[in-house]
């Protein structure tokens, strides 16, 4: 169940099926999908000599090329395909669609193919971004999720989500039992629609049955609004939090006097072994490793500088491509890590993070005082201050006596505009804090798990900055122990008692890299269990707050 490998196999299959010189046509979605898992040189070596968007109308006629099209079966892409077939630019066409085609779409394309240039038509269900080996995203960050209220879906987004999640299941070849969170109307709607789709396409979902069926667990971001608010301290999550990862690309152009070839860099576990080994490590361990990495480079560099004999020279040239690759990679990671550490010290993120973790994990009598202190300080960003108030709100906001309003005023006094503090009320609305107050007896409604905190307190904390584990990790652990209650996480159909082996998680409202890291760790620690996490998008604090703002506008 390595979702990156699966996507890569899809791409390889469509390219290997077609020998000879070829062109690859993509649409906006598939460009993102394919960029995350394959590279230009990768495709060039398979004689894909031209890669272009199907919507590019200035493409030249090249009849001697074969054309592979990898498209999402959206109305727009199918229409572009029809136009292309009416007036074909290339000798023959091999069509691959990333999701289920309707019969009318096939009919319309067939009608347009009067010159009979189409040689192949297949559905390859790679309709998602494979981010890490156990992390996918539907890339819906620019979509409004909610319809008329916080309990209804936006129709377009809903359709898109169902299609995406269905493709994930098909790509993984799983016909799962579906569970959802009882308090999430969106989760229930999605669960029943996916169930319906599986039944509709029962032929397609006719996979080998296992003794214990896989589980699809549909979660709602509103039940864990804490995780995306916290400062992250593992490499991949940290980069996304502080700089931002856009489908594997990181924009470093804001660093002053940066070398031109480092203005934009690529972080891919698939192509970069250093990143693969360090993406889940915390900042301290990362620092040690990067130092070793630099030392290794220096040793090699030293060897290459000391070219005394012809033998040395030969050796150097032989290793030169690797050396060049290494030097590029070393400077990439050194630049990135030093920028991260600059931001950490500039914005006093260690202090902020410590308080964040305390707010997220334990009740503490002087929390309020510390939040107030940090709000008054100058070298802390406005975003951090707002974040702290939000965390305070989640922890204490449902209590009768709380200081949320006082803190809001304090924010305004410290130069944060009233407009920006509106996010606090929007946030309260999004997480439905008032409802949680009444039903605090049911465990699902409390955002913080109380039993766990006590236990943690006894165990002692290894690292204050990473005390908090995401709720999804806790949920999976209780699911594996058979302790996830059916009343709170009902099945859409049937139920099983056995411990599941394959779990697919879908987070409505977006997952985070921190959660992906927790899941990766669970995969490693627990034998015979394979877990894959995904969501409508991948959040950092900034994008999450934008999402909340957007949600509150309905």
């Amino acid at each position, binding site marked *: 169940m390595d979702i990156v490998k699966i996507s890569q196999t899809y791409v390889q299959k469509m390219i290997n099926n077609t020998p000879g010189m070829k062109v690859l046509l993509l649409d906006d979605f598939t460009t993102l999908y394919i960029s995350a898992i394959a590279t230009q040189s990768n495709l060039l070596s398979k004689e894909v000599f031209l890669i272009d968007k199907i919507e590019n109308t200035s493409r030249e006629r090249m009849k001697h090329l074969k054309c592979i099209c990898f498209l999402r079966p959206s109305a727009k892409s199918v229409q572009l395909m029809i136009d292309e077939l009416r007036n074909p630019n290339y000798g023959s066409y091999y069509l691959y669609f990333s999701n289920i085609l309707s019969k009318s779409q096939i009919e319309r394309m067939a009608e347009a193919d009067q010159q009979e240039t189409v040689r192949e038509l*297949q559905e390859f269900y790679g309709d998602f971004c494979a981010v890490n080996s156990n992390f996918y995203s539907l890339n819906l960050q620019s979509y409004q999720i909610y319809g008329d209220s916080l309990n209804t879906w936006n129709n377009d987004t809903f359709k898109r989500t169902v299609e995406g999640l269905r493709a994930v299941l098909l790509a993984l070849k799983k016909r799962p039992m579906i569970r959802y969170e009882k308090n999430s109307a969106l989760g229930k709607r999605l669960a029943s629609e996916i169930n319906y789709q599986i039944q509709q396409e029962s032929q397609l979902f006719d996979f080998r049955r296992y003794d214990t069926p896989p589980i699809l667990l549909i979660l709602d971001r509103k039940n864990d609004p804490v995780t995306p608010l916290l400062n992250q301290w593992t490499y991949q999550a940290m980069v996304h939090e502080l700089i931002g990862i856009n489908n594997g690309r990181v924009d470093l152009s804001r660093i002053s006097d940066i070398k031109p070839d480092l203005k934009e860099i*690529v972080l891919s576990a698939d192509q970069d072994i250093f990143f693969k080994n360090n993406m889940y490590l915390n900042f301290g361990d990362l620092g040690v490793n990067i130092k070793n990495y630099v030392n290794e480079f220096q040793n090699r560099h030293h060897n290459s500088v000391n070219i005394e004999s012809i033998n040395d020279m030969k050796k150097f040239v032989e290793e030169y491509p690797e050396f060049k690759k290494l030097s590029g990679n070393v400077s990439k990671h050194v630049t990135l890590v030093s920028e991260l550490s600059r931001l950490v010290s500039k914005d006093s993120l260690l202090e902020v993070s410590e308080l964040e973790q305390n707010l997220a994990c334990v009740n503490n009598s002087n929390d309020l005082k510390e939040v107030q202190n940090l709000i008054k300080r100058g070298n802390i960003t406005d975003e951090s201050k707002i974040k702290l108030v939000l965390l305070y709100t989640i922890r204490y906001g449902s209590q009768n006596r709380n200081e949320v309003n006082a803190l809001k005023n304090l924010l305004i006094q410290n130069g944060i505009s009233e407009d920006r503090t509106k996010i606090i009320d929007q946030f309260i609305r999004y997480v439905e804090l008032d409802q949680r107050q009444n039903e605090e007896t049911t465990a699902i409604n409390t955002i913080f798990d109380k039993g766990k905190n006590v236990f943690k307190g006894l165990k002692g904390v290894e690292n204050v900055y990473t005390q908090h584990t995401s709720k999804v990790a806790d949920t999976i652990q209780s699911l594996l122990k058979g302790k996830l209650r059916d009343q709170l996480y009902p099945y859409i159909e049937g139920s099983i008692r056995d411990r599941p082996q394959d779990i697919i998680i879908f987070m409505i409202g977006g997952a985070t890299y921190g959660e992906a890291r927790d899941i990766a760790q669970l995969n490693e620690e627990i034998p015979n269990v394979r877990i894959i996490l995904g969501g409508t998008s991948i959040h950092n604090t900034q994008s999450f707050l934008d999402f909340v703002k957007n949600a509150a506008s309905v």
Partner: protein
Amino acid sequence: MATRSRKALFIQYRNLYSKNTINSESLSVQVNPEGIESNDSERAGLIKKNSPFVMSMDNIGQEIIPLNEITGIPSYWTDLVDEVNESVEYLTKEIQNLSELHRKHLIPNFENKDEEEQLINNKTDEITQTIVSCQRKIQNLGVPDTLDSQSAKLKKNIQVSLATKIQDLSQLFRKAQSSYLSKLRNIEQINNSLITTDSINPQNGIPGFDEEDDDELLYVSSSQLQLLEENSTDQIVSAREKEINEISKSINELLGIFRELQTMVIDQGTILDRIDYNIEQVDTNMENATVQLTKATKYQKRTQKSMAICLVILAGVLILFIIIVLLKVMSRRGDKDNTTKGNS
């Protein structure tokens, strides 16, 4: 990794539609004023019939591309790609063979090594020559500097792809060569050290000989033995020296190729190797092109305007000049008149 083929359904629909069009054609034939069905229309009907044989015939027919449809890229590109691909296949095989020969050659035995050496040398030369010729071909493709058109981009990509392939192979070859070289050197060193120890303590015997053989050796005096050994090692050393020089030469030759190809291949792991980035670059190139074009038209318009202004000014000057000339002529005529009047 589920997949589903919709080809059958597609072809079913396609045939349905092409039949429809044939029906309408035959209808139009029926209302032909002559009332006679021509042979051509009958044949057309047969060809379009849905039999697998005709289908495949159709496919074959379509693979033949009319010459006038090939635009932007000459067919020698296609040939070249095939050629280089063939060479790549050949090289991969030969490099493997060569390493096998190397391995064999390094196993110490008492067979005559000259033939093997000759074979290795020939093979090394062959491989080097093939790599060089591939590299020449790739370099002389004549890729345009600007990538504003699709065919230019295509050419560039073909070049990059072929260069990468040859680069990988030349690296493989060089690795094979230098590991062979270092092993040769090692043997040489071992031999040398053996020789020195032997010459100092000849009574210790030559390693590899049994105790029993020592009795036979006693018949040979130690100084004689030494002489014999030195002669043979001299020969071996010079042969090895030659061999090593030979290999060094080939490595150096490859070095140049390597440097030149390196400028062409993509740095893997960088943003330049991203698919979306490359597509964006094409877009921005296009945008730049359109911006340049609009600028150009603007300039043109502006020059047209200024040309018009120039013309107007020129015309003005010309008119002024004519008027002045006219006036002068008039006044002169007037003068003349006056003088004639005065004269008369």
